[in-house]
Each structure stands twice: as C-alpha cells, then as structure tokens.
C-alpha cells in the first residue's frame, strides 16, 4: 500500500513541453508512473515521450480520465494552472513550482479544499510511492520499496535522508515532500496523519527545518500515533532569520527555532538525529 499516489494514479503534467516538464516526464515514466496527459496551452496535439499534449486540463481529463496533476509551470502562471486543474476535477495536485507569491497560495489552498482536491507543495520535490509511482522530481534510484514513510519540508535534504535509509537496508512506502513555503496544501501534521493510517507504513521519518511552528504541531500530534517516529531538524546553526516585526514574536511564542523543535520532538518521545544520515542509525537501533 501507499498513500496519495500509486501505480493506478493517472497523472497530467502541466507545463510538459518545458525543459523541466519534459525531463521529469521521462523520469516519471521510467519509474512506472501512468503519465496519461500533458497540458500546455497552445501546444495541444503534440506529444512528449509518447504522452499526448492538450491545451487545457479539461480536455486532458475528458480524454484520459486523469485524476491527478503535477505542475511545472512558472510562478506567475501557477495560480491559473492550479485552479484550472482543480476545476477540471483532479483529486491530487502536486505543485513543484517554486517562488509562487504566497498570496496566490492563500487563494489556491482553500479553494482546493472546498473542491475536495488534495494539494502537495508548492516549492516541493513531490511524492514518490516507492516501486509504484512518482509525481515529482526526486531521483528514482534512491528508493526501495519498504515500510518507512517519509515526510519532508526540504528537497535535496530529503534525497540525502532517503538515500541513507535505503543504503542502511531499509525501504520506503511513500515519501511526501510537503514543500518549504509558508502556505502549503498539506501540512506536516496532516501528512503524518496520512502515513499513520497507512497499513503498510510501520515507521515514519520526519524531516523539518527552522521557521514556523509546524514541527512543534507535528510533535504534539505524534504523541497520539502508535507508530515509531524519527526526526531530523535542519538549521541548528543557521543565522537567526529576519524578525517579522512584533507580530512574529506574538505568533511564534518562542517556537520556530531548531532548539524548540528538537525539544518538542524529544518531549513527544520522537528521537531526533544530530545529522541527516544518523536517521539510519536511529532506525537500526530501534
């Protein structure tokens, strides 16, 4: 089993004719993903790696029955593309695009929720259900099917950690890159709930970083989850971020730092790795 995405998911690639879109469509196909359609306005009728291209998500869904979409379109056009996909009826939308103004995401996320569409990202590496399917940009070769679920706010750091898990002889169920932006479709505690409910996932690895309070909220949630959870938090030595006026202090109440997050995880009985690959050591020890 896996969460969110499996070999039956029918995926649209929005922005398929761009450099990134083409490259990652190839990699997703190679991983066994059912990429059924591409969308680039004005390029309907073309093909990319044998995948038919449509002018709109509506046409793509009509012709192929697609139920998920991955978005590679540039930031200024991302909101338009996201709303179009949601309106066309996809149930899962993975937004890879980075640098989208968060005011656009303030519109996209509640709209998606109201329409029953799950959003992952933006500014994220996507989802990989090991051995089944990939809607994202994670390297294929680092995964091996197994029983560990992974949730991460980061991109390359996720690869580093998944690689360490796999090299240690373990394997993954689904790896969810939730994205590093302030406004994201699926939060860390929500992703934790998804993996907690998944029968195939026996243990969960959480990769956080400084800023915001999502790790603290995740730690609180972790107390109610029976599966073993392990964490790594990046940014112990990062320079203090810019201060968001007094408002920042009023909201964060002292949370947001690496120390606060590590303390919260430890208080919830979640072991925290001192460095990324130590996750593998922790998994071995328990």
């Amino acid at each position, binding site marked *: 089993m896996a969460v969110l995405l499996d070999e039956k998911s029918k995926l649209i690639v929005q922005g398929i004719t761009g450099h990134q879109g083409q490259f990652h469509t190839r990699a997703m196909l190679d991983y066994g993903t059912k990429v059924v359609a591409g969308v680039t306005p004005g390029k309907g009728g073309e093909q990319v790696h044998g995948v038919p291209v449509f002018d709109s998500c509506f046409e793509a869904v009509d012709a192929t029955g697609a139920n998920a979409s991955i978005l590679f379109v540039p930031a200024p056009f991302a909101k338009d593309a996201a709303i179009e996909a949601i309106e066309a009826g996809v149930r899962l939308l993975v937004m890879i695009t980075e640098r989208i103004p968060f005011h656009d995401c303030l519109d996209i*996320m509640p709209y998606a929720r109201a329409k029953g569409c799950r959003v992952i990202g933006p500014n994220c590496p996507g989802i990989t259900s090991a051995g089944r399917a990939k809607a994202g940009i994670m390297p294929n070769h680092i995964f091996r099917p197994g029983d560990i679920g992974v949730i991460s706010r980061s991109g390359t750091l996720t690869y580093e950690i998944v690689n360490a898990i796999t090299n240690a002889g373990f394997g993954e169920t689904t790896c969810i890159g939730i994205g590093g932006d302030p406004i994201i479709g699926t939060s860390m505690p929500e992703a934790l709930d998804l993996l907690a409910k998944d029968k195939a996932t026996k243990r969960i690895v959480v990769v956080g970083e400084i800023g915001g309070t999502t790790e603290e909220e995740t730690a609180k949630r972790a107390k109610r989850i029976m599966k073993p959870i392990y964490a790594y938090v990046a940014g112990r030595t990062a320079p203090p971020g810019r201060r968001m006026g007094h408002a920042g202090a009023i909201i964060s109440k002292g949370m947001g730092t690496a120390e606060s997050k590590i303390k919260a995880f430890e208080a919830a009985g979640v072991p925290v790795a001192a460095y990324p*690959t130590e996750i593998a050591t922790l998994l071995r020890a328990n």
Partner: protein
Amino acid sequence: MKFYEYKAHEIFRKYGIPVPRGVLASRPEDIVDPPLPCAVKAQVLIGGRGKAGGIKFAKTLGEAREAARQILGMTIGPYTVRQVYAQEMLDIARELYFSITIDRSARAPLLIASATGGMEIESVPETSIFKTPVPPLVGLQPYVLRALVKALALPKETASQVSDIARKAFALFEGEDAELVEINPLAVLKDGRVVAGDAKLIVDDNAEYRHPEYADFPQDRTPLEEEAHDKGITFIQLDGDIGVIANGAGLTMATLDVLNLKGGRGGAFLDLGGTDDPEKVKEAFEILLKAQPSVILLNIFGGITKADTVALGVRRALEEMHVNVPVVARIKGVNEDRAREILKGIGYSADTMEQAAELAVKVRAGGK
C-alpha cells in the same frame, strides 16, 4: 522586501491610512520646512537605531538641521546613514497595536490587535491580544472589524477610526503582496484622531515581479549579498571562515550544522539551487571566493544534477580568479566519477557530508 520608514509611510498614505507628516533629507540643508517639533530619524533597515543615537528631537529648524548633521554619515550596524526623516511629533493619549501577517496553519491572513501597544506589546498577556484569521477567498468582512473593536473595548469615535484603518491596512496587505503590515503604536491622539505612529511593511520577495516599482529599493544586504541577489543567487555571509556551497536550502543548512558539529564555522553559504550550468556555477563560486574563505566545502546531492558540469564551473572559477583556496568536495549526482576527475589537483573529495565536513575542518587547520 523591506522598506525605509519614509517609504512605508508613503505607501500607507497611498491607501489612505493617516501617518505623521514628515520630510526626507539627504543633506541638512534639504530640511526647509519641517513639521515642528519633530523627531529626526536615521533611515536604516535594522532596528536599534534609537539606542545607536539615530533618533534626535528638534524644536526649531536650526535644531532639526543640527540633528541631521549629526545623524547623516553615522554608522548603524553595518550601514551608513544616507537619509534622515524629520517627522512630526504626535501628541499621543493612548497607544494601541495593530498588525496583519499570515497564519500558516490556518492558511489565512491573520489580524492581530491589542488595546495596549507601543514598546510593551511583547509583554502583553496572550489573553489580551485579539487574533483572528480572515477567510482569504472572501476577504475582510465587517463582522471581523466589529469583533476587533469590541475586543479592544474602544470608545465609539476611536472604534470607527480604528476599524477604518484596519480595513485600509487589509487592502494594503492584499494589494502590495505584503507579508507584514504592522502599526505600532496605533496612536490615539489627544485631539481624538487615530494615526499610524509607526508603519512597518514587508513585501513577499516572490511577488517582486508584480511590483517592479520596488525593485531598486536597497535591502539589508552586504555588498556581496547584493551582487548575489542581482544574479539570482542565494548567498548569505556569516561569522565563520569556511565557505559552504550546497544545493537546496535544507541541505545547505544541514551542511552548516554538520560542519559545526565537527568543530568548523561556516563563513558564508551559497545555495546553488537546481542549477548545473557550469557558467552559473562559476558565477556563484566567484562570489563565494570574494568572501575570502579559508576553505570551501562543496556539498552537492543531485540525483538529477549533473555533477561533472558543476565541477567544471568550480574549476573555471578557481582558474580564472587565480586563487588558491582548497576545496573539499562531496558531489553525488549524474557523472560523479567524471566530477572527481575534473576536481583532481584542486581539492579533496569525500563520500559523505560528514566526511567532507571533517576534512574541511582538518584542511583549515593545516593538518592535511
């Protein structure tokens, strides 16, 4: 994007929010008809200017010019003061607090207000602070404003002005792609008027393309950071002496952490992002070299990034700048063997990021 105080006031004024009158000057003699009495304030992008002597009070034109003379050219933190703002002194009866920022968990703008503002705001008990998310798809409805003024127990004529300012501030928050709109104090004057005593504005950097008019405003960056920003490179200068270059924010932070764990200190860090274009890598590397690190720790985990073209960029930068800084490289990605070949002779290679960090600390100490 941050803004100088005078500029933030100008934007607030554009949205009809009352702010104190003021004049901007880059030379004392530019102050001709200041509102009197006034506070002459250094225009810098960091806090603590009052303590540094960057705010002085004046009752006459002569005093205002003298204050400007003293403040202009002053160094506050890493900045030299180039401009002062002579601002009307307000006759304040009461200080409130108001701000709008984002609530990440609620995925909504968040209004924050308190009946006690000013310097004390961060010690106001949480129960006395009014906080409410605004449903983003429908925007600010009047009921939110009614709840706000009721929570603050404001007298009627103050309430209507506060509510009006809150509404305009929300329009500003949306219209300018703001991350933060903060008014502290929101001043109730002795004559009953309500004025934004101070105006703080931070605009989402990712929305820069929608606000080209702000593109040229100076930000709180060092000259090297500014150069990097102009080239679209994420680069931050730190206190230590080991230059760190990695791809992705999370991995860059993790690399700094591991370096620290091994006894080293990051001196500057550069996030290469997803690029493996040798020219772009070269450009980035040149900026890092200008920060004069003792050692460079390169940590790339690509998967899809081409390791050899990254290595090529590194090599070209070192050759063209004729510098001899040892490079400790850990590169994982496509063609990583070829990358090791390219970097032979200019540095050391490591398999894992822990090994690389350890090696960098050794090389720095001259032990290798």
